[in-house]
């Protein structure tokens, strides 16, 4: 039984999935122990699973089955009721919680398996904000189709920009937008403002001055280097989200 936060992207927003796919996740997990264990011991063993762990993906996995290193940022024991253990875990993307449970069971010496799992966060998306069920999505669509009311649909569906919450942003001139939509690299003269904390090789989001996302890119220079330099490539465009022709073409000589 797995429930909780599942970000779903529509149409062109699917191009932005990479923005949060590799971001951290948080879960609440119900684990079943196969023998009685002193809760204090369970707590000690759980704590030992914080930090770097090694995991081999399960038999039924959609990735190559080789041992991978994953980071567990935090594990908190919430409740123990006989052989059932409820805990909260914050971890790196790609951590198998079902596997984590059986590894914890092995460390305890009694064996254990995952009974239920609820994801409470996937990158910028959490259970607490704008979280809707399939029924609520359906109802919002019905209100729009039958009564022409957009309000609910606008609440249920969020702008794709929300997926970029934790990615540093570079804001560019109108005249640079269409070139980026064509996949061009972002040169420093096209930049109007940028956020601190940009590192070469890291992900950046290219935005217009109207706060619309243009593309996801790979930074070539740090924030400081962009401020100091007058020319050069600040970022390489990796995934374009904005539709071509949204802004006028102002590059590459004469227009046809």
């Amino acid at each position, binding site marked *: 039984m*797995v429930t909780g936060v599942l970000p779903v992207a529509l*149409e062109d927003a699917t191009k932005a999935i990479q923005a949060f796919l590799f971001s951290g996740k948080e879960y609440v997990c119900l684990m079943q122990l196969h023998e009685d264990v002193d809760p204090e011991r369970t707590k000690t063993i759980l704590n030992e699973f914080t930090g770097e762990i090694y995991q081999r993906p399960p038999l039924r996995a*959609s990735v190559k089955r080789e041992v991978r290193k994953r980071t567990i940022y935090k594990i908190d024991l919430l409740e123990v009721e006989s052989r059932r253990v409820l805990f909260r875990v914050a971890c790196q993307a790609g951590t198998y919680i079902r596997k984590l449970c059986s590894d914890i069971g092995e460390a305890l010496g009694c064996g254990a398996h995952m009974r239920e799992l609820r994801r409470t966060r996937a990158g910028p998306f959490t259970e607490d904000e704008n979280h809707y069920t399939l029924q609520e999505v359906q109802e919002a669509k019905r209100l729009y189709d039958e009564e022409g009311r957009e309000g609910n*649909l606008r609440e249920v569906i*969020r702008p794709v920009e929300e997926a970029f919450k934790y990615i*540093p942003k570079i804001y560019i001139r109108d005249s640079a*937008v269409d070139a980026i939509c064509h996949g061009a690299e972002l040169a420093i003269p096209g930049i109007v403002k940028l*956020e601190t*904390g940009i590192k070469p090789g890291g992900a950046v989001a290219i935005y217009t001055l109207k706060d619309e996302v243009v593309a996801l890119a790979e930074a070539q220079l740090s*924030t400081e280097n962009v401020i100091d330099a007058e020319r050069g490539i600040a970022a390489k465009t990796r995934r374009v989200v904005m539709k071509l022709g949204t802004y006028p073409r102002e590059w590459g000589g004469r227009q046809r």
Partner: protein
Amino acid sequence: MKRELEILAQAETDKRYGTPPSERPISEHIRLGMINLNKPPNPSSNEVASWVRKVLGVKHAGHGGTLEAKRPGRSNGYRRTPRSA
């Protein structure tokens, strides 16, 4: 992590092009939309995404981060019949 904004140049944006995210017409809002879906227990992530696609009548819907995968490849109980020569 708190990020600050560094201003490099002064520039205006032409209101004839583009639209701030909060002012998009509904069709654009859907085209560039994300749903923070509360996944129910049984269907797989893929099934949920395809359900959203049908309900909203959009061409594409993709989910980020699989919650409970169905067995990749064959479905349960499926046996491949031997290839005829």
